């Protein structure tokens, strides 16, 4: 079991290295090698999670270790989607190290045996967790794309056309890809919240309990809703949209990790 995980981490690191060297040397074969390594790693990663799920008999996100494994998996999957859709190869430079880093962090954590409760076996919960993880992964990528946008925009504005300018794709493509990530992320997040509410009603008898995680998730949802509204209504795009996506990911990270560490609540168990 652990061998599969180590092999996946190794392939993610290999992929990260390929993307880094590609950025520096611009050899056309490297991003393909990076993508191939990442796909291989993703398949191993998927197998690992599936095996863990079957062994435990529930969705493997019951402690912080497992949660990080799932989060890394979601980012890798979202990256493959964005890569297929927009072809922003250089985004691998952000995604591959991020996935590898999260996975390594998770692997270093102890995995206390989670007390399996009936809580984890509902289909609603599965849908809730999957949608939330994938949505957050899409927002994580939107943040990465936003950083790339700001770098390229700065290069063009300051008329430095030698380095970053040549290595990053066009502003239009980055802006579109970032927007695409936000739309997908928002849709998944909405789905995640709805299934979460339904599940809460089934388990605790109430849709909304003012649990800190719920509150902060609501804040995130409203934040991204505002971003989309701004884009559709007043044409927020480019720089502003990129900064928004980066700041949004900050709030999201806080919701994902910070809330669990600061407050008690019914999501507490998942990061113990």
């Amino acid at each position, binding site marked *: 079991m652990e061998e599969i995980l180590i092999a996946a981490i190794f392939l993610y690191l290999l992929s990260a290295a390929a993307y880094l060297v590609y950025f520096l040397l611009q050899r056309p074969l490297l991003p393909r090698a990076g993508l191939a390594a990442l796909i291989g790693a993703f398949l191993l990663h998927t197998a690992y999670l599936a095996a863990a799920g079957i062994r435990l008999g529930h969705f493997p996100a019951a402690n912080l270790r497992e949660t990080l494994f799932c989060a890394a998996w979601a980012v890798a999957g979202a990256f493959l989607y964005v890569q297929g859709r927009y072809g922003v190869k250089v985004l691998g430079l952000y995604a591959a190290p991020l996935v590898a880093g999260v996975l390594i962090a998770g692997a270093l954590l102890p995995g206390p045996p989670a007390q399996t409760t009936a809580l984890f076996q509902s289909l609603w919960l599965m849908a809730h967790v999957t949608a939330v993880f994938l949505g957050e992964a899409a927002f994580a990528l939107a943040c990465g794309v936003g950083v790339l946008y700001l770098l*390229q925009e700065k290069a*063009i*504005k300051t*008329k430095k*056309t*030698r380095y970053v*300018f*040549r290595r990053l*794709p*066009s*502003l*239009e*493509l980055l802006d579109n890809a970032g927007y695409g990530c936000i739309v997908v992320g928002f849709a998944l997040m909405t789905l995640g919240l709805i299934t979460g509410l339904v599940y809460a009603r089934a388990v605790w008898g109430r849709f909304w309990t003012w649990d800190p995680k719920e509150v902060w998730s609501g804040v995130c949802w409203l934040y991204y809703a505002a971003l989309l509204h701004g884009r559709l209504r*007043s*044409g*927020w*795009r*480019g*720089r*502003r949209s990129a900064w928004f996506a980066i700041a949004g990911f900050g709030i999201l990270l806080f919701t994902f990790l910070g809330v669990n560490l600061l407050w008690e609540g019914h999501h507490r168990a998942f990061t113990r």
Partner: protein
Amino acid sequence: MVDIVLIGINHKTAPVELRECLAFAAEEAEEALRRLVGDPAVREALLYSTCNRVELLMAAENRDGALAAGRGLLAARNRLSPELLEGSLYIHENDDAVRHLFRVASSLDSLVVGEPQILGQIKEAYRQALRAKSSGVILNRLMHRAFFVAKRVRTETGIGGHAVSVSYAAVELGRKIFGDLAGKRVLLIGAGEMAELAVEHLLRQKVAEILVANRTYEHGLELARRFQGRALRFEDLPAALTEADIILSSTGAPGFILTRDQIRPVLRHRRNRPLFFIDIAVPRDIDPEINRLENAYVYDIDDLQGVVEENRQDRMKEAVKGERLIDEAVVRFRQWREGLEVVPTIVALHRKLEAIGEQELRRTAQSRRWAEGDVEAARRMLAAFINKVLHEPTVFLKRQGHRTDQTVSVDFVRKLFHLDE
């Protein structure tokens, strides 16, 4: 050994007045090549004539004779004075000639290093030589190596990358802002050679429409007709700004014709779709402050020239890498040429057969568990066999020693037994 010689003039050695006198049209070139290979000193010949160079490449039976024939051919054109020609002419031989050809084909010897047309022109020259039947074993191989190395230099170095002209630099910038330029609208304000050149580049990128605003409406109409665009009255400029994505300005106006305060509401009106200003005018037409607005980008002539200068320096750096690839190719070509000699070919043939014999012998001896003495006897038998088999081919190749098609036979034998590599 057959010598490879190259004589010619190019943009570095001869002024355009001389180059145009020497230029050959396609039919003329074929005729000249036929005449050249009629000369016993010249075995094979190829000629390329572009606006920057006229060069004659020959595989020579007799070096001095071939050079005289080549000089005669060039001097005969338009009855040039020999002194004038002699001062501009360069001659390269063997490795130097090969290197020169490789550098020309790879565009390292071009006026604009890395320009892509030259390879096509040389391919066309090779087709001409094939039609004139003036290219044989040596030049065929040489030209194919030249095409190969040129392609390699292009793909493995960055000599062809990044714009080295102002108008093309503008297109490259546009691509980094808009991604695809197809479907974008271009507004040309004023007129001028460089601006019009940039418009032509943009048209090739399939932009949707060219809008032309000129102080003299009639002049604008004329330009619009040329670019199949639409002419505007100068007063309608503000309205056109909402429509256009790329604004190319090149007027003689003394001050800014577009200011930051004018553009700010335009951007809001366009829902922040980006605007790219290319200001080729001196004094400038576009307020540089506009560059500080979000989603607006301003490049003036100095900015563009700065980009071009950097790109040119980078090409020079990449050209050094190209030279290394060429050095390698020159050495390999020399090895091939040396292989065309009879004796090394016969030696190589012996070695090849002996190697095959030894391999088969060892296999049989092992499976049949032959004694050491039997193996030795079989080895002697094999050596005798190889000598007898190769006797007739050896005599054939050596007898041909002084015939002109010796290289053809040697080359054929080398190919038949796969002796190269």
